[in-house]
């Protein structure tokens, strides 16, 4: 199986890399991947259908439980058939659709193959995290495909919407999967199926998983991205957004339903969401004039239907769901292909602009009618078989709470399905053609064989599997058993006798015909109804609201937090760094120190405080520098008073040197600095300074008092002791600097060197670029509002 994924990867990348070289033939190369997959699946099919799955494993990160375990069972086989079968047809169809070479075609073809590989990964993974990996890859490739026509802003917006919604769902899903995996002790589905975990966390986990699946499968209220995604080229819509990717959510729900349908609120959630999606999708499909949007909402509705069938954890019903996956793939892909053909040949797909087609279009029309009839559930077509099976499943085996309500919804929504299928057919035949609109369809070219062929193949499949559904018995029964090992699936029939299900089908068709006949009145009712429900935000508005909200919050928060004022930054930083630890230290503050040890201290401290205050008040530069010097001298005085003359000497020389340097440099600057409106008011600044001072005092006090609880000697004691015998020096400071901790000194010397280099390179006159001028300090401060952005184009 890995070779298949690798094959898709290689072919996809090769096509993208080849770029314009291949032209339309890119799709021929692309077709190799699904073709090989189909052949491989056909070769494995007999064994798999005998209940003997093919497995392969790759240990990626075993400690985290991320292993890529692949398993081809009958359900996976069914999905592979859909993915690669439709994939192959789409590749051929694309040769007709993209009749003219245009930029980005190679990207499209390549990414399409990459998508197909990712999608295969989803259905072949036996491991939840591996499944998730491929799941996300389908989202990414879908994003790239929707936005492939990147100069179209609508395409960009739609791709963003798709990845945002499915991405959000993906993250929720990830959390859910991890919760389930941790509770079950494994991420392997085949092991979880044998022993599903339970418990409070699992109940939360399954809801998260369901949300993830709902976003992917465009369930209400997350469905808005799917209609928006119709901006993509039709082959993409047909393949990703009807036949395969959107079924990933359904697929996952189908896989997990046997384990969790009875757990927590799984079944209730699935029924409520599935039923709403099915009805809302149907209602909205009925309002569309764009054929593609009509199909998109129809897909939403059908996906809801699939959820109702595959998600409730009852194997008879699930079996119907499997049939529906196949039937839907056949008719919906064919319908999309038809829309693509119409769009391509006439330049429109709006039913008010179509006025029917000439006789050379007969084949396309037949395909449209057959496929739409299958969607509507008319015998003897494949869609009818699926719908009969579904109705029968709910009638015979729907013995859980809410099943009857769901059945009613299915019947009602199926009537809608009939109506929008009819709307599609009538649209294609020009029944809605507005006399005022220009007529293009009558004279349109009939499409070529390559263009129509794939949809004909699908229509033939729709008819054949409708008349002889028994052909699929092995596959569907095998898939059902793969999901529900204890099940005894029933064979498929076109005609299962005169039963309630058949009666309901008749009801659906009769009501559907009625709706179609009364369509003008229905439209009126719908318009009025939509005005009533307008205040309720739609999924689309919800999405836009979320985006706007994020953007507003981001701007607000950033403007508040990152206001660009250095004094405010500093205030916040120093307050945080002092007050938070001070709160902890304050709990162990210990006894207060003896305030005055020697009278000299009082004088020195007074000088220090006065000089420090002075330095922050005066405006005269040199005075400020001198006061800073005074602080340093007073500090040195404190060293003398404490009996450390060597330290004091060092301090004196440093202070003298730096004061002299200060004065030398300040000569070149104005005598005093301009008054600038401070960004923090004076009382506030004083309060901040005081708070920081108190904080540091608490640090010192509490740390100093804690010394008594540590018995070991201080480093300084050891150093003083060892200075002469080991360091061969009487001056312990010197020994420390050049010997014991010479490593530090080396670093500090480097710091000085670099600082000197930096100062020189900043200050050096005649900088190499002539447009440069060394900015003066005040200019820099005043440049507050200048954008701090390098623009080579400036």
């Amino acid at each position, binding site marked *: 199986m890995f070779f298949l994924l690798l094959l898709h990867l290689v072919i996809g990348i090769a096509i993208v890399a080849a770029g314009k070289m291949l032209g339309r033939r890119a799709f021929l190369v692309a077709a190799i991947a699904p073709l090989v997959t189909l052949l491989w699946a056909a070769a494995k099919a007999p064994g798999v259908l005998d209940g003997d799955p093919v497995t392969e494993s790759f240990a990626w*990160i075993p400690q985290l439980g991320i292993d890529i375990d692949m398993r081809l069972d009958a359900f996976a086989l069914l999905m592979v058939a859909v993915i690669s079968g439709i994939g192959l047809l789409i590749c051929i169809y694309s040769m007709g659709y993209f009749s003219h070479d245009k930029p980005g075609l190679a990207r499209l073809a390549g990414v399409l193959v990459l998508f197909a590989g990712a999608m295969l990964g989803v259905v072949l993974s036996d491991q939840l995290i591996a499944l998730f990996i491929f799941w996300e890859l389908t989202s990414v490739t879908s994003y790239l495909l929707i936005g492939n026509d990147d100069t179209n802003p609508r395409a960009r917006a739609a791709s963003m919407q798709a990845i945002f919604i499915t991405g959000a769902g993906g993250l*929720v899903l990830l959390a859910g999967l*991890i919760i389930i995996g941790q509770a079950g002790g494994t991420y392997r589905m085949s092991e979880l199926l044998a022993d599903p975990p339970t418990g409070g966390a699992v109940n939360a986990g399954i809801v998260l998983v369901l949300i993830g699946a709902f976003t992917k499968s465009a369930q209400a209220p997350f469905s808005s991205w799917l209609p928006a995604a119709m901006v993509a080229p039709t082959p993409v819509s047909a393949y990703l957004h009807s036949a395969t990717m959107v079924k990933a959510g359904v697929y996952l729900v189908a896989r997990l339903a046997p384990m969790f349908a009875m757990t927590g609120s799984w079944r209730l959630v699935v029924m409520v969401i599935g039923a709403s999606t099915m009805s809302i999708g149907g209602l909205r499909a009925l309002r569309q004039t764009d054929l593609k949007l009509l199909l998109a909402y129809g897909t939403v509705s059908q996906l809801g239907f699939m959820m109702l069938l595959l998600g409730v954890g009852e194997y008879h019903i699930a079996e119907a769901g499997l049939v529906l996956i196949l039937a839907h793939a056949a008719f919906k892909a064919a319908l999309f292909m038809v829309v693509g053909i119409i769009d391509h040949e006439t330049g429109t797909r709006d039913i008010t602009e179509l006025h029917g087609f000439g006789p050379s279009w007969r084949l396309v029309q037949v395909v449209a009618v057959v496929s739409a009839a299958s969607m509507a559930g008319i015998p003897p077509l494949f869609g009818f078989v699926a719908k009969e099976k579904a109705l029968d499943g709910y009638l015979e085996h729907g013995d859980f709470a809410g099943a009857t309500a769901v059945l009613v919804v299915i019947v009602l929504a199926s009537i809608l399905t009939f109506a929008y299928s009819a709307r599609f057919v009538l649209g294609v035949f020009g029944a809605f053609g507005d006399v005022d609109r220009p007529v293009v369809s009558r004279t349109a070219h009939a499409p070529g064989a390559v263009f129509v062929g794939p949809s004909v193949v699908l229509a033939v499949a729709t008819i054949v599997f409708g008349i002889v559904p028994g052909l699929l018995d092995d596959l569907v029964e095998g898939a059902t058993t793969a999901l529900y090992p204890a099940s005894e699936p029933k064979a498929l029939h076109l005609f299962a006798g005169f039963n309630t299900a058949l009666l309901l089908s008749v009801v659906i068709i009769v009501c559907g015909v009625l709706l179609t006949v009364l369509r003008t009145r229905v439209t009126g009712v719908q318009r009025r109804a939509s005005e009533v429900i307008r205040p309720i935000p739609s999924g689309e508005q919800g999405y836009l609201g979320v985006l706007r909200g994020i953007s507003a919050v981001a701007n607000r928060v*950033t403007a508040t937090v990152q206001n*660009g004022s250095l004094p405010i930054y500093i205030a*916040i930083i120093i307050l945080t760094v*002092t007050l938070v630890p001070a709160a902890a230290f304050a709990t162990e503050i210990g006894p207060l120190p003896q305030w005055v040890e020697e009278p000299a201290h009082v004088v020195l401290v007074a000088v220090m405080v006065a000089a420090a205050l002075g330095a922050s008040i005066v405006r005269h530069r040199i005075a400020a520098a001198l006061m800073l010097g005074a602080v340093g001298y007073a500090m040195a005085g404190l060293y003398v008073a404490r009996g450390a003359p060597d330290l004091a000497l060092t301090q004196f020389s440093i202070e003298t040197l730096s004061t002299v340097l200060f004065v030398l440099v300040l000569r070149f600057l104005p005598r005093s600095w301009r008054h600038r409106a401070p960004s923090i008011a004076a009382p506030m600044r004083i309060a901040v300074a005081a708070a920081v001072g108190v904080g540091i005092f608490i640090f010192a006090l509490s740390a100093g008092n804690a010394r008594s609880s*540590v018995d*070991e000697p201080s480093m300084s004691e050891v150093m003083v002791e060892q200075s002469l015998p080991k360091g061969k020096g009487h001056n312990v400071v010197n020994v420390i600097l050049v010997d014991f901790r010479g490593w530090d000194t080396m670093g500090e010397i480097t710091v000085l060197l670099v600082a000197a280099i930096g100062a*020189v390179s900043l200050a050096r006159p005649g900088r190499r670029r002539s447009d440069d001028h060394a900015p003066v300090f005040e200019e820099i401060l005043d440049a507050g509002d200048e954008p701090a952005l390098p623009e080579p184009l400036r």
Partner: protein
Amino acid sequence: MNALIPLPIIVPLLGASLCVIAARARWIQRIVSLSALTCNMIVAITLFVRVDDRDMVVMQAGGWPVPLGITLAVDRLSAVMLVVSSLMLLAVMVYAIGQKAEESRYAAFNPVYLVLAAGVSASFITGDLFNLFVAFEMMLVASYVLLTLGGRPDQVRAGMSYVVISLIASTFFVTALAVIYAATGTVNMAQLAERMPELPPGVATGFSLLLILVFGIKAGLFPLFFWLPDSYPTASGAITAVFAGLLTKVGVYAIIRTQTLMFPPDARQGTLLLVLAGLTMIVGVLGALAQDDLRRMLSFHIVSHIGYMIFGLALFTLAGVAGAVFYVVHHIIVKTALFLVAGLVERRSGSDRLSRVGGLVRSAPVIAVLFALPALSIAGLPPFSGFVGKFALVSAGIDSQDWLIVGVSLLVSLLTVYVMVRIWSNVFWGEPEDPAIVAWIASEESRVPRLMTASASVVVALSVALMVFAGPLYNYAERTAADLLAPQRYIESVLGSDAP
């Protein structure tokens, strides 16, 4: 083997002095820099292999036993940081040469860059808290110079905020050293680890908080990160890349090192760190969303992802710390790659404003691919290393039942995807409208020098390699986490072997 330990510091310093001497001969400077950084990389890899294979290596500088001298020690965490940082430093150096900007224009670039390299290595190697301060100073002073090397007013202005805030951070670091020394009588980390439990709990907690916040300024934690998004984007592409990739992570490293080694479990600040981590993630990503230019966006985004690393550490579980270590390694490489590619984008399209540029997927498909790979990774999309890191952290968080931070991290992950998609959609898709940009893209001048593309490609390739080797790397991270959570080995290696 122990003799190798100081080399990642000494070799670049030696190189720096040679570069100062050869200030007028750029080609000599280049040979010296490249050889010094290559040598660093080889030493780092040798140490990495040896440390992982056998045991951590310890050396007392100058042969002075604890507590007289300074301890240098390389354990698994230091080793992996050394390897990754030396790789990045070398790659960025090549990029800087290719860029023909600061490196070609100023003789100071090469020596200062090498001092930066030495400072970064020294931070990872030292086992002495005061020496860590010295290492920080080397790194910081070099970064001040590199940031303002261009001398443009906006650079100097941004540089000033950066210098002022860094100096304040350094002052607090010294204050912390002073009070820690006052209470324990030592600055040797292993000795501190022994003595910390003897202190009254409130004092140990205070020290723990103090160090978190001091290093938090450097790491860019909320609410201490303001300097970062204002200063990083003003430097040239290469310099921003190395700052973004390495400097904040040195702060994170210091937090991980001191919290796991020095503090007994009851003085660890799990809850506070979780709160800080969550806020850092959110504020950072919101900041990124509010920007219009690529490098500012990416700079804010660094802040956001620092939160992830702290989240992993804050759990103080094997899975959490392993996730944090993995994330740090991932982030250094991937973020450096993104910034290097951002430099390519800017060179190719003449601007890095999202609202001005566009259509690079057609005009520069190679850059588009080079951007897409690390962008997917940083957005946490599978199967890239960002996903592995995110998975490790989220799964550790769920395991510890810290639901809130798990929720926050997932939300932030979504917003990260959104940020990356916005960049992609604006920079690579669409078409530039500004005629100046269109003319620039069409001109010869906009051609990106090969060397820049090549070195960016190497870093991107490394980020992809992280995905391929995620299994072994995560194993390594887990072994590292096991070491960190049982610091007795470290203490014994430092004090047991050479104690007087």
